[in-house]
Each structure stands twice: as structure tokens, then as C-alpha cells.
């Protein structure tokens, strides 16, 4: 119990530090604006767009994994399902904050609703993730409704919050839980379609860009979906391995192993996709197509690929999740999951930045030399601070929800 309290203090200390840094970052962003950012007109998207697709990928992946249970009836993962859904919700909020702060005119975001251009993949993306957001809230409510009613009787903040969120519902009967479950199945099925559409759509946002050869491939929407599943799966594996209340039991160990196998399969598939993507382009030797890959593999920031993507995202998880000894140990399997979660930041950075670092016309960056015409990009301190703040915000929200709401693993909506 004591060590648990110790960890909790460490966690909140980190969260408070992140939030403090975030307040500084957001203050700079909102007062000084984009001047303190390091992206420019050659590389117009940087850390924030990369982190946006990272968070949104985690959300879509966690959601799709929850639907294994709610839609496809894979009971094996039932103890994880509710937490997956909650993870999807928090990650989505982080994603929306992250992309909002990237806009040149944040106050005009509503225009995507009032005057959408439906030939733009970005407009579709916004409409789809808005629908997904609403669906997540509704599905979350039906999944937790009966427990919210029960928790309403609890004393303190948790009880008050549950009472508010129950929205006046009082029915605790098994029949009502069955009705909830049917609704969740329908919502989940809609959600699967939505998650595929909107995350595939984020991939398409890049893929339709014919002036960036590396993005302009039919593989991209599919790779985005797969990346969502890998990173979301890795996150849930880590969370479940380290946080589940039933740690140490056989049931916990065996679910960790099942998750490990699922994640291993997804990682292997992702390696195959990456190989297909890179090798075909490489074979073609078309300079504009090959240049971004050269930057990724041998450029100034080579370690993002070799240490981030390959070591942490491929080698570590494949080894840890293939060997029986490590796969069956929640500690090692959880570390493999955490390794994937970190590695996908590298994956997302390499999706966004190197393809932009090759100017569309040779010599463009040198035609009128300026800081904003640079082909080299490293996030500024303001950019890091803003993103760290968002991570802190997500971590705080996650811990609060986890502590106060019925979203923990092994919550028993299957008691009917």
C-alpha cells in the first residue's frame, strides 16, 4: 500500500511539472504567437502535427480494441474494454487540443463547421472526429451507466461526480444493463466504421497530397489504421500490465499474454508495411521520391528512425513479445508496450517532417534565404512546452477519471 502511495506521489509530481511547463508554453503561444515556433514555409508542419496524429492514432487504436469486446464479442479482453474506451476519449481530447494550437487563427476553428469544403480531407477529418467524439461520450455513458448509478451512493467527490454523470438515471436492474449492452453493441459498431473512416481519413489527408511523393501512396490510409492499432495496443498493454488491480493473479498474467500476442502480430504487420512502403520507392530511384527516405535513414536526425522506430518500435517489442519467458511476465510485456508507445512518437515525426524537408522545386530554399525557408527543423522550446503541457493535461485527466469514475479494468458490466 505504501509503495502504491509513493508511486502516486511521483505520478502527480510529474503531472504538476508537465502542467507548469505547459502553462508557460501556452502563455507564449497565446501572447507571442507563431513567432516562437520553429517550423516555416518549407516545413510548415512540425512537432504539433506529428503529435496530433500520434494522439489521434492512440485514440483510434484504443477504441478499436475496445470494440473487439463490445462489437465482436471477444470476451477475452472484456476486463480491458472499459478502460480502452476511456483511454480513447482522453487521447482524443489531447489530439484536439494539439491540432487547435497549431492553427494560425485559433479563434476561427468553427469555420470548419460553418463553411466546410467537402473536397478537403481536412474538413472530412474534422467532421468525422467530431461525430466520433460524440459517439465516444454516448457509448462511454451506456457502458458505465449502471456503475455510475451505483457509485452515486458513494461518499465524497467520486459519488457526487457519478451522480452528476448518471444524468438522473436510477435503474440498476439487470434488464437495464442488458438494454445498455445492446445499445453499446450498436454504438460500437458505428464507432468501428467511424474510427476506420476518420483515421483512414487522416492517412488520406496526407495521401492525397500529390506534391509530396512520399505521402502520395494508397498505402498511407491503411498504414495509419495499422499504426493506430499498434500504438493503441501497446498503450493498453502497458497500462494493463502495470495498473490493473488484479496484478499478480493468474487471470492478469494470462490476459497480458493474450494482449502481447495481439500486439506482436500487429507490430510484425507494421514492419511489413514499412518495408513495402520504403523498398518500392527505393527501387524506383526517382530523386524526389527517394530523398525523404534518405533523410529518414541517413539524415541529420537518423536516430529518430534507427533508435526510435527500429530499436524501440520493432526490435524491442518483437523480441520481448516473442520469447515465452518475457511475454508471460507482465513486467516485460508491459515494457514492450511502453516501448511501442514511445517509438510511435518517432514514427509520427518521420511521417510528417522529412517528406516536407525536400522543397518542391530544387533550389527553392536557397532562392531567398530566411529562417522560415530552412530545410532543417527542430522544435522550439515553446513547441515542446505546449506539447508537454498537453501530455500533463491528458495524464491528469486520466488519473482523475481512473480514480473517480467506474472505468478501471475488471469493472463488471458483464454481471447480467
Amino acid at each position, binding site marked *: 500500500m505504501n509503495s502504491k502511495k509513493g508511486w502516486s506521489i511521483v505520478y502527480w509530481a510529474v503531472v504538476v511539472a508537465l502542467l507548469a511547463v505547459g502553462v508557460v508554453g501556452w502563455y507564449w503561444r497565446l501572447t507571442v*504567437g*507563431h*513567432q516562437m*515556433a520553429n517550423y*516555416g*514555409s*518549407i516545413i*510548415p*508542419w512540425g512537432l504539433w502535427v506529428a503529435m496530433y496524429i500520434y494522439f489521434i492514432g492512440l485514440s483510434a487504436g484504443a477504441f478499436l480494441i475496445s470494440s473487439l469486446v463490445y462489437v465482436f464479442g471477444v470476451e477475452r479482453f472484456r476486463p480491458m474494454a472499459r478502460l480502452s474506451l476511456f483511454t480513447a476519449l482522453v487521447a482524443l481530447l489531447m489530439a484536439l487540443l494539439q491540432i487547435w494550437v*497549431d*492553427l*494560425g*487563427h485559433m479563434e*476561427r*476553428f468553427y*469555420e*470548419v463547421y460553418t*463553411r*466546410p*469544403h467537402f*473536397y*478537403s*480531407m*481536412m*474538413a472530412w477529418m*474534422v467532421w468525422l472526429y467530431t461525430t466520433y467524439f460524440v459517439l465516444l461520450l454516448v457509448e462511454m455513458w451506456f457502458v458505465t451507466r449502471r456503475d455510475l448509478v451505483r457509485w452515486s451512493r458513494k461518499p465524497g467527490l467520486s459519488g457526487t461526480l457519478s451522480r452528476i454523470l448518471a444524468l438522473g438515471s436510477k435503474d440498476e436492474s439487470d434488464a437495464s444493463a442488458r438494454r445498455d449492452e445492446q445499445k453499446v453493441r450498436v454504438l460500437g459498431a458505428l464507432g468501428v466504421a467511424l474510427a476506420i473512416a476518420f483515421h483512414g481519413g487522416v492517412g488520406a*489527408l496526407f495521401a*492525397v*497530397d*500529390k*506534391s*509530396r511523393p512520399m505521402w502520395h501512396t494508397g498505402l498511407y490510409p491503411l498504414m495509419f489504421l495499422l499504426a493506430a492499432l499498434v500504438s493503441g495496443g501497446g498503450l493498453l498493454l502497458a497500462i494493463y500490465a502495470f495498473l490493473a488491480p488484479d496484478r499478480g493473479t493468474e487471470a492478469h498474467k494470462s490476459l497480458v499474454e493474450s494482449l502481447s500476442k495481439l500486439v506482436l502480430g500487429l507490430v510484425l504487420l507494421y514492419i511489413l508495411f514499412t518495408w513495402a512502403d520504403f523498398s518500392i520507392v527505393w527501387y524506383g530511384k526517382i530523386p524526389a521520391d527517394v530523398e525523404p527516405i534518405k533523410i529518414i535513414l541517413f539524415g541529420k536526425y537518423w536516430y529518430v528512425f534507427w533508435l526510435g522506430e527500429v530499436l524501440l518500435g520493432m526490435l524491442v517489442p518483437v523480441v520481448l513479445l516473442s520469447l515465452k519467458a518475457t511475454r508471460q511476465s507482465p513486467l516485460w510485456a508491459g515494457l514492450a508496450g511502453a516501448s511501442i508507445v514511445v517509438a510511435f512518437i518517432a514514427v509520427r515525426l518521420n511521417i510528417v517532417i522529412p517528406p*516536407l524537408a525536400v*522543397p*518542391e*522545386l*530544387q*533550389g*527553392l530554399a*536557397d*532562392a*531567398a534565404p*530566411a*529562417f*522560415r*525557408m530552412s530545410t532543417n527543423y527542430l522544435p522550439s522550446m515553446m513547441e515542446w512546452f505546449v506539447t508537454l503541457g498537453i501530455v500533463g493535461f491528458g495524464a491528469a485527466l486520466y488519473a482523475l477519471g481512473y480514480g473517480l469514475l467506474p472505468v478501471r479494468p475488471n469493472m463488471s458490466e458483464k454481471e447480467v
Partner: protein
Amino acid sequence: MPEIPVIQEREDVIARMMDDLQRALKKPPSERRWGMVIDLTKCTGCDSCTVACKSEHKTPPGVNYNVVIKEEIGTYPNVRDVFLPRPCMQCENPPCVDVCPVSATYKNEEGIVVIDYDVCIGCRYCITACPYGARSFDFGEWYTIDTPEVAPYETAPTFEYSEERVREDGKSPIGNVRKCNFCIERLHEGLLPACITTCVGRARYFGDLNDPDSLVSELLRQKHAFRLKEELGTEPKVYYLT
């Protein structure tokens, strides 16, 4: 004393193009098709087009509507410099317009790709989509910010899109994407784009591509012309002569 040969009276190209412009302005806007022709054999790489554009639109550091891309071909001493001026191509099928989530950028009825600064949300998707790197983001910077006073030439109003605007923090066009608009505000006043009037080598021509009698149409009939990245199907309205 040898007799000095009489130099044949030649028609001034600027005067000719201004006549072409007047003719085009008499037509309904949708029947005009503005186009630019740049003779690469005449371009000396002096960058005066870039400078004229800068002073016309008072664009801040890093925001360039026009640049001259330079390349050295061969190895010293057997080298040749080539120059490629790059305004906005004003594509018939502009990829930047396709991707804009709020239709802030669109092709107007005269065929010029314009940006509505008061609508643009600054997402910069169009910058990634332009195959010619013709778009820049206005970060809100100034050339003379580190001097005792921001110079008046930076804070003077501009008349882009025939709207009087003063660049101020937090207000458009700061936080917007910006690009060459063929000096549409000048055209409507009967003036040629700034880069055309200023070109020292008379390498740049402008006019109505729909008018068979315009200088640009005549040049495209007589000489060999190419456009950048034809394979993308963007159909640029900027032609290069070689």
C-alpha cells in the same frame, strides 16, 4: 565620318502590354484568363522582380510571393548560371484550393487563385499541397524588429485584393497563408503586376491568354514554351520560354 545606322523604332513591350490589359478589362471578368510568360533566355537573375514584389506587398521576412531560383550548371570554369523566376502558377486545377478545409482559398472568376485573409484559419495544408512552393505562412515577423523602431515601410498599409490593411499582431494577414495574386489590385487599376513593370531584362510578360492579339498569346504561338510539372495536371498559367 561613317554614317550611324538609324535604330529601328520598336514598340515598347510595356506599352503594348498595358494596351492588352485595357482590352481585357473591357471584357466581363469570366472571359479573361490572366497569364504570365517568362523568357528564361532574358532573365539575368537580378532579383528585381522579388524586390518589386516585396515593396508592393510589404511582405515580412520569409514570406515570398516571387523568388528567383538559381542553379549553376557544370564545373568551374565551364559553368553556366540558370535562373528560374517562380511566382504563383495560378493553376487551372490548383491543388491548394482542393485541400483548403474552409474554402478560404479559391480560384476567382478571372482564374486567379486568391486567399480570403479573413476566413483562412492558418492550418497550412495548402502550403504542403502546392507543388511549386509558392505559398508562405505569415509568422508575424518584421525585418526591422531588432532596431529601435520598426521601419515605417513595414507598417504602412497594403492594398492586396484592393483592401487597405495594416499588418498588426494577431490580425490578418498575420497567421494566414499568403501568396502571389498576379497583383490583382493593380490589374483592376489598369496597372501591370509589379514584377512585370520592374523587370530589367524585359523577361517577364503578362496579359490575357484568351485574347489572341495579346503579347503573351503571340509569344506562346511563336516560341517554344514549357510549364513546370505538367505531369501533375495542374495546368499552370505561367509559361517559360527557352
